[in-house]
């Protein structure tokens, strides 16, 4: 009963969010996100229709689940593109960090496969999704760290989108690790209730287009003089280090 309520509530909120996105024009600013939302709505209809046949439902569930993960990666790239459009330096750093995360994940997968060649054959769909979602969570984590370090200003729309999607991915990773796939205990409902919470956050933050914060433009004096800035920063840090060590000098 409760799971039915959560399911129908989620569908209602998704329809509202999607409709509002079309009406406010935000679907043009975040086409991948609204495409993802449309896909989630379509997958729910498909799952509902295939539910009476357990075999068909299983195929539909897992194929749409993995497609959703793939489109979700597109949402992360859309957040990256929107947030760092005006910050080429930070965008470069984010690209390097994300490439590093991806290469590390591939390397880890190869090492695991070499150590246990039968894992790919024996692993069930839940284990594969857990592995992919973990890489996705690490990617969002790295991207958020870059945003925080470079103090990237966000509008309410993009901030809500990132926080909501990051929360959703974290909840999914935690549920795949700790929530039993069968049975409907407390944690099952806790995870199920987290999705409407994410949708509520998205509805609030994406209700109307927010102003994109003005970052004051690029200082032409500094734009193409990174090396000078970096040298000055290193010199100031070195000065601070000498200042700090002064206390320990006899």
């Amino acid at each position: 009963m409760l799971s039915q309520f959560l399911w129908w509530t989620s569908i209602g909120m998704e329809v509202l969010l999607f409709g509002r996105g079309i009406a406010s024009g935000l679907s043009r600013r975040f086409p991948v996100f609204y495409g993802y939302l449309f896909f989630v709505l379509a997958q729910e209809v498909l799952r509902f229709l295939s539910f009476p046949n357990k075999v068909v439902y299983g195929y539909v569930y897992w194929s749409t689940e993995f497609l959703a993960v793939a489109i979700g990666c597109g949402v992360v790239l859309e957040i990256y593109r929107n947030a760092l459009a005006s910050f080429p330096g930070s965008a470069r750093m984010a690209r390097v960090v994300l490439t590093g995360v991806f290469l590390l994940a591939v390397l880890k997968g190869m090492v695991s496969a070499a150590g246990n060649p039968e894992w790919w054959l024996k692993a069930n769909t839940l284990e594969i999704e857990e592995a992919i979602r973990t890489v996705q969570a690490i990617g969002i984590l790295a991207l958020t760290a870059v945003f925080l370090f470079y103090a990237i200003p966000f509008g309410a729309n993009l901030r809500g989108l990132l926080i909501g999607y990051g929360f959703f991915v974290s909840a999914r990773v935690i549920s795949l690790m700790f929530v039993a796939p069968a049975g409907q205990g407390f944690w099952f409902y806790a995870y199920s209730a987290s999705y409407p919470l994410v949708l509520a956050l998205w509805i609030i933050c994406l209700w109307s287009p927010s102003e994109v914060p003005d970052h004051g433009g690029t200082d032409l004096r500094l734009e193409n003089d990174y090396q000078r800035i970096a040298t000055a920063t290193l010199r100031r840090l070195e000065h601070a280090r000498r200042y700090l060590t002064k206390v320990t000098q006899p």
Partner: protein
Amino acid sequence: MNALPGGVVASGAAGGLLLLLLLLGIRQGNGSGGFDSQVNLPPTGTIGELGPCPSDFVSKIFSESDLTFVSSTGSSELERLLLRERKQVALAWVSQTSAFLSLVIREHVASARSSQNLRITTEVRIVARYGQLMLICGLLSVVIRIAGPFWVRGLALYAQRLCQRTVQVALLLEPKAASGTHIV
């Protein structure tokens, strides 16, 4: 992926992400994540120019000479007062230094994030140096809180003496080893 012990990476990633998202929400909510926060920054300078504490006085904060003088008066109350005051001054100095470091980094990222030719290796060096200095500030703060400011210099002097002794022992052993090699 499944071979990892207890899904440490997965739980760490999920927990870390939640933490960073919370931080992002708080920072952006406060408006401190935006470029506006750069407006009130002081002009580029050194810590000596920014700080109210002249660098000559810094070594005095941690110097034991005042403590020795006060101890010679035999007043335990005066000694306790000096320790308390000196601890506050030392902590204020550490806090001022870490605030300066944060200003340096904020100024740097404000310029670097818009730079077309940002170099990753240089950025990593800057972040590593910043992290190292902030760690020193954190350690100094903890040591001052636990053991007082005078202990900081005492510890450094002890480490220096230990290092000198090690060098002396190494120098003493070196000719013997060298002559031993010749004999062989």
